[in-house]
């Protein structure tokens, strides 16, 4: 399967040129093809070790590595080449590679980086994000910073790993967290994170279907991943955010002011719209218009709007906005949030028109 379309430069967590070694009896022989070793988080959120030829996209080796499970080490016995061994402690499996970068002075550094990634995935992820470039600053908030930001310095009882997990799930459609997906950097312009993450991750054929789906008038699949139980944590975050005082509140727009009961009633009578919202109802709910109507008028939904408004107003939700495919500035308040949703719709409209023109 072609994982990475060559047209898109994808930043990997670790990447360096190396060839494989073929075991021939007791001897190791170099596979002369030019290759590259790289590591990334796969769609399964696990750390993967890949080897492929430098040209082409066919992954020849794809190994899942759990934290501290494997180690890469120089093979000192081999004096003719720079040979390294990847040793799986769990299975005793060994793979041999020879370094192919001209400059050998960086070998140890590269391997150290790889080992560090295996041993301490989270901190490498953060570092990667810090180095990801100035224009990606918003997205490159480290998980720890984000966690800290969201919790207002309080311990939320979720560790960084769980939080990353939740962000990844929140990203939807098996996309990864922004640091490895080409937002702001390599991706096609004007594409949302949700849309760009899967298309950069999957084969081109698949990404076409993705594209098609995303141009449908009603996109019911987007953001649906957010409703998984793992998002309990998000609820906790929201509940930690102090609801601002009455005086501030009357001056700022609330989501409840926009989504008035009258406004909602008229649009819910549209069956297409209603059906598109069914997946976001609680799992136990019936997918009927009456149920949707009842839930949207429930005090619990109203309270949720109120809390989300307060959270938006506090400016603490910026990083999460990227998970909805919105600009992080959407987290700067209710009005910014609404404006970003408007903008997103406009952008899609343009895209739809473009794709229609092409047809």
């Amino acid at each position: 399967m072609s994982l990475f379309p060559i047209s898109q430069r994808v930043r990997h967590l670790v990447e360096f040129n190396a060839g494989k070694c073929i075991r021939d009896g007791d001897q190791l022989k170099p596979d002369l093809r030019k290759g590259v070793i790289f590591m990334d988080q796969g769609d399964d959120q696990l750390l993967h070790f890949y080897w492929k030829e430098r040209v082409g996209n066919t992954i020849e080796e794809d190994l899942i590595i759990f934290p501290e499970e494997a180690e890469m080490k120089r093979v000192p016995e081999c004096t003719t080449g720079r040979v390294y061994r990847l040793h799986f402690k769990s299975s005793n499996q060994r793979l041999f590679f020879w370094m192919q970068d001209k400059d050998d002075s960086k070998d140890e550094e590269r391997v150290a980086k790889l080992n560090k990634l295996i041993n301490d995935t989270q901190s490498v992820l953060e570092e990667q994000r810090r180095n990801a470039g100035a224009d990606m600053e918003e997205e490159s908030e480290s998980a720890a910073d984000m966690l800290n930001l969201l919790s207002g310095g309080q311990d939320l009882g979720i560790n960084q790993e769980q939080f990353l997990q939740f962000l990844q799930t929140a990203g939807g459609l098996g996309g990864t967290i922004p640091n490895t997906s080409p937002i702001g950097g390599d991706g096609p312009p004007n594409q949302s994170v949700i849309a760009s993450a899967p298309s950069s991750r999957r084969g081109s054929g698949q990404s076409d279907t993705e594209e098609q789906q995303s141009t449908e008038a009603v996109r019911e699949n987007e953001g649906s991943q957010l409703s998984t139980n793992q998002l309990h944590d998000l609820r906790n975050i929201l509940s930690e955010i102090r609801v601002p005082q009455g005086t501030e509140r009357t001056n700022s727009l609330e989501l409840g002011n926009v989504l008035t009961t009258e406004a909602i009633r008229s649009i819910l009578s549209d069956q297409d719209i209603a059906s598109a919202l069914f997946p976001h109802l609680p799992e136990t709910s019936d997918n009927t218009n009456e149920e949707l109507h009842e839930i949207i008028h429930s005090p619990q939904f109203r309270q949720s709007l109120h809390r989300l408004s307060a959270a938006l107003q506090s400016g603490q939700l910026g990083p999460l906005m990227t998970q909805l495919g919105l600009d992080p500035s959407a987290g700067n308040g209710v009005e910014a949030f609404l404006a970003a949703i408007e903008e997103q719709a406009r952008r899609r409209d343009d895209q739809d028109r473009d794709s229609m023109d092409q047809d």
Partner: protein
Amino acid sequence: MSDAGNWCLIESDPGVFTELISGMGVSGIQVEEVFSLDETSLDKLKPIYGLIFLFKWQGAQSSMPHPDSQDDANDHVFFAKQIINNACATQAILSILMNNSDIELGDDLSNFKSFTADFPPDLKGLAISNSDLIRSVHNSFSRSDPFINEMQDSSAQGDEDLFHFISYVPVHGALYELDGLSSGPVNLGPCNEENWTEKANQVIMERMRKYSESEIHFSLMAVTKDRIETLQEQLDEFSGLLMSLGDADQEQRREFESQISILQYEYEQEKTKRARWKRENQLRQHNFIPLTYNLLRILAERKKLQPLVNAAKAKKRLERERSDKK
């Protein structure tokens, strides 16, 4: 209340409390809001294991003096100091559960009770705040508080002591007031199973009288046996009595039959209420962000969002002008 930790504030609602209790592994318990303190309304709820008086206070001026513990009741009364304010509802509930030997605590809380049995009150409080089980059950109900608007009172800002929960529970023939902010359990005198609620009422009414002068909101919750179980038992009892009656005793028969139909009605009511609680809790625990986002997104795609936003802004402006004029 140094460290709020990661305890969410939960809604003070009988449905929330009831599910919280069963979430901790305790079976056959229900929490009911008590709207009237007269004996007949309380009688209907019996057996009652304890009462929780909760109120919202406004700063220190309305705080009651906390009388010191008068005896070494810690030996036989489970009393925990309040460490985390957000946990106070859960703590008040635990104070009742832990002090009644008739309640089936389940494995987790039984272990917790025996583990903390010899702890002094402050350590017990710490143990509650550090219990993963209790915290995770508690936190599964996030804040969507009916008092939320009141919480925005200027006097309330930054003040963590918004809610105060005091439990009243009969232990070994004496009525105790358990207030996590006082130094220990307060013995309010002898009582028995029959008259303890009456005695507790006097104390609670006295408190209410004081607080009503300073406009404090309060409510009362009763921790009772599962109402459905209770009603079922009563129904069975009357059915049994009815069957044992001879044909001759028509008057008695009619009496029993009318009792049964009343109980059946209450039983159905109770079932309906449980279903409502369950649904409310599901909605409380649901993450509405995807629904909200998609609703807004679809509105935007249909070019309906901007007009709504403009209307909302205009309305805000109008409200503001109106309030400025005042």
